[in-house]
């Protein structure tokens, strides 16, 4: 200890020693001791790590936490001493004004580069890199891209200005700031220009929104999506294209969805656990939940709607690419559309999903036949009176 103290004192001779005598060197010694003790810890850690590797796959233990705290403490002490040295010298040891100026420039350059890198590398993983899977997806993507460009320009310009000013106008001795409290012209333009840009976005957004939510094709196929903890069901309306009534008291009694096949329109309903939809056919999804709020999210189709118990919701869309076409375009034979739950709903929320398959009309028809209707009578009507016979040249049989 004493030796250390001497060594330190020697080293510190450059500094005015009379201020730095006992307290500071004590702190230094303490810091050094802690630093040296680190190596001991490091050895311990190695042994510990071996033991940990044997028992579990863990790579975290209390020692690391302890060392982290110690490091924080040591860093803290070092800079405390530096600041005291600065007080003695009447001049800070580290000139943070200059360093911050330079770091700002480094930050904005590296930051924007990283940002660009992200767009190139991770941008590919977003759904904008996939071909649009539904009729309204192109409109959606255009809206998104317009917003992205406008906000992107503002982002780059303002961030550059912010960090550039930080660098350029950092404190310099003898310079006085410009007294400039107001400029009405600037304020007016700073209001008008964002106002105009946002008007463009709002107007376009309103059109897209009303297109997506209010368009209804009368010939749309009615399908009910039923969510419960933690799975989904689909119910097809059958030949009459009308979903039968349900009774929530009967859920789990008559069937999972509480649809009594004897009720009006219900006989020909078909309940499945996969959602198949025919391509280029307007689909009118009706959502219903059993227990808590879920959210049916079909990212590839730009479709999402909450599924609320006791509150009917719906969404209208037209798939335009079959699963097979999408697989071919992506060159990924395993690709599947999905419907996933996007509203916190309980422990297995993270795996509450349903496979969505977009078939050609023939395939869809074939698949639907393999699923039984609620009653035999329904099946009969299903065969004799097809939904498609009314709306498209393709018939079920």
């Amino acid at each position, binding site marked *: 200890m004493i030796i250390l103290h001497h060594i330190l004192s020697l080293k510190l001779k450059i500094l005015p020693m009379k201020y730095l005598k006992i307290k500071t060197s004590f702190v230094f010694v303490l810091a050094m001791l802690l630093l040296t003790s680190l190596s001991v810890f490091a050895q311990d850690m190695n042994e510990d790590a071996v033991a940990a590797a044997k028992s579990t796959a863990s790579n975290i233990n209390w020692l690391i936490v302890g060392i982290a705290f110690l490091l924080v403490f040591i860093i803290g002490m070092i800079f405390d001493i530096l600041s005291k040295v600065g007080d003695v010298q009447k001049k800070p040891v580290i000139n*943070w*004004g200059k360093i911050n100026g330079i770091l700002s420039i480094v930050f904005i350059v590296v930051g924007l580069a990283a940002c660009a890198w992200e767009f190139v590398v991770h941008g590919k993983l977003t759904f904008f890199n996939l071909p649009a899977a539904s009729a309204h997806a192109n409109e959606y993507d255009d809206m998104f891209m317009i917003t992205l460009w406008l906000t992107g320009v503002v982002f780059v310009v303002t961030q550059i200005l912010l960090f550039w000013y930080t660098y350029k106008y950092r404190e310099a001795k003898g310079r006085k700031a410009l007294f400039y409290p107001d400029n009405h012209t600037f304020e007016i333009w*700073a209001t008008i220009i964002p106002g105009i840009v946002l008007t463009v976005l709002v107007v376009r957004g309103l059109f897209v929104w009303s297109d997506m939510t209010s368009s209804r094709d009368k010939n749309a196929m009615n399908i009910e999506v039923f969510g419960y903890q933690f799975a989904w069901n689909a119910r097809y309306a059958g030949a009459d294209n009308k979903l039968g009534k349900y009774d*929530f008291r009967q859920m789990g009694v008559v069937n999972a969805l509480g649809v009594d096949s004897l009720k009006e329109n219900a006989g020909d309903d078909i309940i499945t656990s996969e959602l198949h939809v025919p391509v280029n056919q307007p689909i009118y999804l009706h959502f219903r939940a059993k227990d808590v709020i879920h959210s049916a999210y079909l990212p590839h189709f730009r479709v999402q709607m909450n599924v609320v118990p006791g*509150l009917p919701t719906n969404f209208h869309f037209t798939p335009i690419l079959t699963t097979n076409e999408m697989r071919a375009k992506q060159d990924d034979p395993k690709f599947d559309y999905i419907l996933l739950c996007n509203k916190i709903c309980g422990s297995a929320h993270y795996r509450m999903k349903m496979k969505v398959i977009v078939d050609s009309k023939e395939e869809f028809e074939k698949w639907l036949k393999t699923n039984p209707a609620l009653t035999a009578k329904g099946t009969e009507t299903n065969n004799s009176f097809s939904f498609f016979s009314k709306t498209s040249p393709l018939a079920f049989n």
Partner: protein
Amino acid sequence: MSAVASHADVLHHDDHGHHKETFISKYVFSMDHKMISKQFLITGIIMGTIGMLMSLVFRLQLAYPNTTFPIFETLLGEWGKGGKLDPNFYLALITIHGTIMVFFVLTAGLSGTFSNLLIPLQVGARDMASPFLNMLSYWFFFTSSCVMIASLFVQGGPASAGWTIYPPLSALPKAIPGSGTGMTLWLVSMILFIVSSLLGGINYVATVLNMRTKGMKMTRLPLTIWAFTFTAILGILSFPVLFGGSLLLVFDRSFGTSFYLNEIPADLAGGIERVGGSPILFQHLFWFLGHPEVYIILLPALGITSEVIATNSRKPIFGYRAMIGSIMAIALLSFVVWGHHMFITGMNPFLGSVFMLGTLIIAVPSAIKTFNYLGTLWKGNLRLNPQMMFAIGLVSFFISGGLTGIFLGNAALDINLHDTYFVVAHFHLVMGSAAIFGMLCGIYHWYPKMFGRTMNESLGQIHFWMTIVSAYCVFFPMHFMGLAGVPRRYYAFTAYDQFNVFVDMNIFITYAAFLGGIAQFIFLFNFFYSMRKGKKAVQNPWESNTLEWTTPVKHLHGNWPGEIPHVYRWPYDYSVPGHEIDFIPQNTPHEGQEDPLTEPQTIPTPERKVAPTLAKEEAVLFTLVKRWLGFA
């Protein structure tokens, strides 16, 4: 107004004679606003540390869903059996992390600390309008924090329906274990919290309106006070709605009513069939608070930043009146945009378009604020101390997060972005990081006022750089996850092939989060160490104009030893031409000014020469607009 001030003076002097301070009255049940602000701050910091540690736990889970961490079992016991985090407990963690951060740190910790500290000091008052209510406000907050922490240890775990606690999930104990006792305690805690927040808010508004010192006109208030006032007004108007909403939820949970429940079979809902309510009603009530809440969090941070940026740029804040105007506009608009959280709940699409319009309009005052910050920095003489860096960081986050808000505020775009990681990224940048930066900026700036010492500068700078890098590394990549359709609040992404590509990104984010965590420990060290060992502060360490720096370093009950100073000018007279020193405190009279209320120059305009041409340009502009609208 002056009458009130002098009245307070008299009261104070009367008090002085027989006022005896014991340990309890000084440190525990203190009625001194400065002590209460310290109490708020330290409770907030403790809660913030808990919230941050929680986020590190679930970040580990998200990065390594298939790895076992024995530490989880040590720390969490049953919830981390075999080193695997329980999915229900994951949900509990994100719920409590959100609740703590939004309410306990960024509402009470931020607003409670700085409103309490600065309102009396900056308007020139001896204390709050009602010191007793102020004390109650803290102790309600403290009780509320204790209840929230206690809820971590009950059977079934803490509330786990997300911080927005949407029923039926939060109403049905059968749906998730956290909706049992944990949720009851959550609601109790929230009700206590709302009481605390209302007591505080009423006090702040009353103090600002009634107890300003002589000469402190509303147009001479620092922007901090403007921001705190509007924050308090927002809180007073919106928190009671959540109070009502929470009570109804308590009824639904405990007394068998059906305010928020419809078509729930008896076996799911405790033996009573629930029909006739609406789950969406709760969302309306919640977000009627919830959206103003975002501004309750953000406005104080913006106010603090305005003050710090002006002081450390040695320049008046650019567009003082525009700043006040935009605070007012934001506050007003924040009440008519709550529906943008609910675009896809099945709300009438027309309603959606109304909320979308309101939401995007908010971008205009926000843009004005940003431009004004840039305008203030322009040609300044920036002292890049930690608080200034944090203020600049706030502006950076405000831009980044604000711009993604334009995507989410657009109802059409929200369809595919709602509840994805894009939302997580957006609000963590604009509300989380920005407001935390505002809070840290305030702590570094007013630490000398609070504790009579300064924090270590270098540690502050290291804290800043580590935090900003970590925050951007954590939240920026999340945008891309969101754009790939990755939903938030997922325990793991292992069930989806297309989300596997984000494994590396998740690991990277977790590393960045740990970097941020270490940075916060550096801050904590600096904060607590400087309290005793920091450099002794001088009276006005930042050479600032506002009144709090005219009080002595050592705290005394009643703030000023003699008379309360009078105010003669606005708070932003920095680098006034013709003055040797680059700041003129508010209590310095203009040359020849005797009556504080007279205004030799309302707000100094920069150059007299420019003004007429500006007027002309404006006139031309307005004539054009008028002509275009067909008026002329």
